[in-house]
């Protein structure tokens, strides 16, 4: 990067309030190494949230994602609490090119990606009428997805994705046998790169 151009970008970034963690790990590109996101589906009525932290490994065009979830999973005459966590590896295979619909230069975790991950969650269910716990369940899952991260403004990241997932539900009370199912997964994250 030429000196005047680097100075101009640094000045613009500072004026825009960009954080200090910008590095220049790829030639000609400012790279944000971290992202935090909220999963929009987790906000779809009810109380709870799912979010993620993503760490960028630009030399390999890979990122590591750690997710967490806590939400109310049953209401009415019952209450349910769900806690979950997971991990995912993503490959932004075109990160070395300037992504479409992105305010960021090449070298960032933006644009197309494919990912694969696993997760674990537990569900606790309570009958509020008879005041009794109905037990707990464990879900073990794996998924593969493809997505496209848009960065329309500064470091704002909007990330739709789709893929397939399979999970095994285990009733820890032993009353029901294990149950495996799969389906189409549709995700939408909103986050911030820094």
């Amino acid at each position: 990067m030429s000196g005047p151009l680097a100075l101009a970008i640094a000045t613009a970034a500072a004026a825009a309030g960009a954080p200090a963690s910008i590095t220049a790990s790829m030639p000609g590109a400012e790279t944000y190494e971290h992202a935090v996101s909220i999963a929009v589906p987790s906000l779809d009525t009810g109380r709870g949230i799912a979010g993620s932290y993503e760490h960028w490994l630009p030399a390999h065009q890979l990122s590591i994602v750690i997710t967490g979830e806590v939400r109310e999973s049953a209401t009415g005459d019952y209450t349910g609490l769900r806690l979950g966590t997971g991990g995912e590896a993503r490959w932004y295979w075109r990160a070395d090119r300037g992504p479409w619909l992105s305010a960021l230069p090449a070298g960032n975790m933006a644009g197309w990606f494919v990912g694969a991950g696993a997760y674990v969650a537990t569900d606790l269910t309570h009958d509020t009428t008879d005041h009794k716990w109905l037990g707990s369940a464990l879900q073990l899952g794996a998924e593969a997805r493809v997505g496209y991260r848009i960065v329309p403004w500064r470091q704002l990241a909007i990330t739709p994705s789709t893929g397939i997932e399979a999970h095994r539900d285990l009733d820890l009370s032993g009353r029901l046998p294990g149950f495996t199912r799969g389906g189409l997964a549709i995700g939408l994250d909103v986050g911030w790169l820094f």
Partner: protein
Amino acid sequence: MQSDISYDDRFPSNVLDLYMPPPATTPRPAVLLIHGGGWHEGINRDSMAAHAARLADAGYVTINIDYRLTPNGGQFPHEVQDCYCALAYVRGHATELNVDPDRIAGLGYSAGGHLVSMLGTDRDAIVQPDCAAGPTGPLNAVVAGAGPQDMAAMPEVSVVIDFVGGTKAAAPELYAQASPLTHAAPDSPPFLFIHGDDDWFVDIDAQERPMKRALDAMGVETRLLEVPGGGHIFNRGADGTAWELPLTSIDTPESQAAMIDFLDTTIGPPP
């Protein structure tokens, strides 16, 4: 599993699969499974097969049925009659199946939730079966997943019109007759309703909640499990960051736990 058992040989569609738990020395409770699909051709009992196998592993004799569908003979009241006929068949074969005929619950989703609710509430001769198995009494407990309870409050879409047999304006009496809400009575069996609160097709405010209120007012034992954010065929996925489809409200771990507890406390646990 014994598959493709005819429960009404007048209609090739009317077959059931029988899932038997391990042998027992005393009669066992049973669960009749009724699939959804908008009362219309396209979805069959395969959609409930996983539930059937799981409940059989939990000790219940499980009967997973097909029935006539629109546009091939399923128009109201035929689908209700077919389901009643399957229930009559099970009760008629209770001895050989080692089933307690007074401990049979129904589990259905969507249109199947409507049909099990009809089998729980309706004693009107109009929907009693005219098959060889003969008439029978209502179910002993009902688990209704996202089941229409008031047909007049459903969106006026083709699957509803085709099932009921006309528009609301043209056939209001049929909409009333086809609605479990019309038939709710103090002697109705216990009901467990399971419903996603983001279901735009079968609206919980127009269907399950009014039905629960009506049954509660009559002193009938009811439970309602609402799945926050649950739609008709999608829910927040198992990993929490995505929507998953197909994933219905009766598939969630909370619903499974509530369902088993409800069955155990209403028709009794398996021996």
